[in-house]
């Protein structure tokens, strides 16, 4: 069995980067970015996960078949998110002139939860 042996310094480097990104995500969370707080937090989490997958999980040195399997899993995860959220996010768009509101029993009552 001849798996790729990465140098120890690489693992410590990845670890240091993950720690930095953890600090960054906490700092970003306390920074008022309005609606950008969520995308920033998710982007940092995706960056961290990518580092773990590529280096700690050796995917950078894995076969194409393994890479394809991972991309497929993420693709189907994307389908689940995209199709489900387009449904839930758009409920009431055409049944209620004011969007999801008090008159809409299917969708949520956004009037009481929207930021002021």
């Amino acid at each position: 069995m001849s798996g790729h042996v990465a140098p120890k310094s690489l693992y410590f480097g990845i670890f240091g980067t993950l720690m930095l990104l953890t600090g960054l995500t906490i700092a970003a969370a306390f920074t008022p970015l309005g609606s950008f707080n969520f995308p920033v937090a998710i982007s940092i989490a995706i960056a961290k996960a990518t580092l773990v997958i590529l280096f700690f999980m050796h995917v950078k040195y894995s076969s194409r078949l393994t890479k394809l399997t991972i991309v497929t899993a993420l693709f189907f995860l994307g389908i689940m998110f995209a199709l489900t959220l387009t449904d839930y996010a758009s409920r009431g768009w055409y049944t209620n002139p004011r969007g999801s509101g008090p008159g809409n029993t299917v969708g949520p009552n956004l009037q009481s939860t929207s930021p002021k």
Partner: protein
Amino acid sequence: MAAHVDPHGHPPPHGYGAAGVHVHEPHPAHQHHFETMEQQAEAATLGMWLFLATEVLFFGGLFTTYLIYRMWYPAAWSEGSLELDIVLGSVNTVVLITSSLTMALAVRAAQTGHQRPLIRNLILTIILGLVFLVIKFFEYKHKFDVGHVPGPNFHFEGAHAGQVELFITLYFAMTGLHALHMVIGFGIMSVILWMAMKQRFSPAWYTPVELAGLYWHFVDIVWIFLFPLLYLVDRAGHYA
């Protein structure tokens, strides 16, 4: 096969390998239906990733639920998230990422055949996992103490108690499923440690260490997403 005589004095191969080609003594872990150890390791890795693909979708269902309710009840998500202890959550993030480092070093030690670093890093990984669960236990205990447990006794002072209860429900469901994976991880790591102590692994065969590592890192990745989604929803106070 009985008539086969190896010029190098090796015993005859077990029915694989072209006749006359030099064939090494098969590794004890080598299954006969694989041509080579490399092919066997590749198949095992692929199988593990297929399992992890189902795990991605398993957790994905909970993440989808989370996204829908967060989209519907942003204010409640902000209130609920502020109830979580950000210090304990951050410490646990550091603990779990560190355990991923020791796990990666354990796999590397197995690859290079370093017995003592392998055992040391496996033990470190198990200890760090335990620290994570102990911290998680105290977080849960606090939730029970203040009545932030979904159910008939749920108690929350705030404008959107019912919606916050949904957030706390998802908090328990997602961190609970994650913690269950940690507990299963212990079982796996204990077996790996036991095998390592019996000197079962070598650079020629360390597949179980590699696959246990993949599992451990996957659980780490789930937490990498849970941390910002649960603890850092609205620390800047946009909705609060």
